[in-house]
């Protein structure tokens, strides 16, 4: 169609698109990378939630505990100390450094799937932030709720499970949602241990085609879409939880 004047920039765009994504099936770097990113994020979130709630409950219990035996009190003090060390170290060092240490130092002499290393590193990292969010949530519940539960005869654990945690969950949902959005983006440093995640995938294309903007903008757009989708989901959840209580 030589008659129709196709603007020059469109032709360039088409060529660049072909070169970066179609030729040699380069789009696969992005799709495979996305799958790695999603897997790391998903399982790291799970670890983060479990670890975060565990640490938060230990710390809140340590602060709250009343009538108990010296043995339990002593155990709690030790656990609380361990939790504090964990929180200080994890929140006091960059996640990339933690990732590198876990890969090269802790698992240095062990053959292990790099994805598992990344899941552990990001999960352990996220757990520290979740813990502080959840602890704040537990502490913000009126003490009267706790007393009402105990006065009915619920033990400490039952009071936590049936009364405190459900209310905490609702309060911390927005902050937790943000934490997981941050986590999704933070996994982009997984390339440091040579994991081909989404970011690394784009970077591989760049190194093959010597054109930077197309693969990198594509990577950025994919992150953006995921973050926007997650934010929407979070809002939806929040609204549903709120309407259920009103």
């Amino acid at each position, binding site marked *: 169609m030589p008659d129709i004047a196709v603007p020059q920039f469109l032709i360039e765009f088409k060529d660049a698109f072909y070169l970066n994504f179609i030729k040699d099936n380069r789009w696969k770097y992005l799709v495979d990378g996305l799958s790695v990113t999603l897997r790391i994020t998903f399982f790291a979130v799970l670890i983060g939630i479990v670890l975060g709630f565990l640490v938060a409950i230990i710390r809140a219990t340590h602060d709250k505990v009343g*009538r108990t035996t010296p043995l339990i009190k002593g155990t709690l003090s030790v656990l609380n100390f361990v939790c504090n060390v964990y929180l200080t170290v994890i929140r006091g060092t960059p996640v990339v450094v933690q990732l590198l240490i876990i890969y090269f130092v802790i698992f240095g002499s062990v053959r292990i799937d790099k994805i598992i290393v990344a899941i552990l590193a990001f999960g352990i990292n996220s757990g520290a932030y979740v813990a502080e969010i959840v602890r704040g949530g537990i502490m913000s519940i*009126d003490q009267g709720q706790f007393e*009402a539960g105990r006065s*009915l*005869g619920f033990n400490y654990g039952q009071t936590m499970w049936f009364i405190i945690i459900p209310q905490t969950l609702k309060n911390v949902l927005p902050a937790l949602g943000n934490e997981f959005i941050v986590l999704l983006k933070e996994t982009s440093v997984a390339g440091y241990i040579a994991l081909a995640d989404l970011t690394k995938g784009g970077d591989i294309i760049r190194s093959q085609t010597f054109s930077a903007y197309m693969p990198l903008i594509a990577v950025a757009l994919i992150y953006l879409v995921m973050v926007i989708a997650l934010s929407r989901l979070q809002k939806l959840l929040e609204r549903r939880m709120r309407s259920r*209580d009103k």
Partner: protein
Amino acid sequence: MTNNPYMKPFNPETDPLISVRDLQKNFKDLHALKGVDLDIYQGDVIFVVGPSGSGKSTFLRCLNCLEEADGGEIFFEGVNITNRNVDINRHRQKMGMVFQQFNLFPHMTVMKNLTQAPIILQHKSKEEAEAEAIKLLERVGLADRADAYPNQLSGGQKQRIAIVRALCMKPDVMLFDEPTSALDPEMVGEVLEVMRDLAKQKMTMVVVTHEMAFAREVASKVVFMAEGKILEVAPPDVFFNNPRTDRLKSFLEKVL
């Protein structure tokens, strides 16, 4: 069982349901309870009055160990519940408590507020627990609010629900800490009505309150606390008409 050091024989006909001996409580260097002794028998309706900060709430909260006593003993149905080896959760099931701020569970419907504890702790079926809850709701005139959430209720309704929540556990004694103090004046009556009804049905009650007229009307005994001690215990007519101590005289002059 009676050979346990924290048990003693208990006959509900003759022994006090709750027996408090030399109860002490400190908050850091504040001596909030300085040796409180009191016997509460089945069917007693004990009103505790006294100036602000005299330790009334602390005393009441010690009775179900929400505050841990620093000295002395509390025997409930023959068991020294201040002993750490006692499973306090089991005994708390038999002591209903009503708070000034209601403390209903905001994330549960009224029905769930009422049935959660009986279902979990007394292993009742959902149907059984709900049937009992409905009966009690009818007694306080709130059967139609079973599906409401607490924030859809007025203060008076919340407090009546809170009373029912405690009653659903079939307690042997009910503890009230200023149950009407957080209410708008026009809602006080409906809550007092429920309490009056309970007293008539011979529920054992310990009530901390500033409602002197109500104390005079329903109390079997009125207790005067000041500065962490019980200064006077008497039936209401004696208590209000012939106070023995100057401390109570001047207190009554102020509040009546």
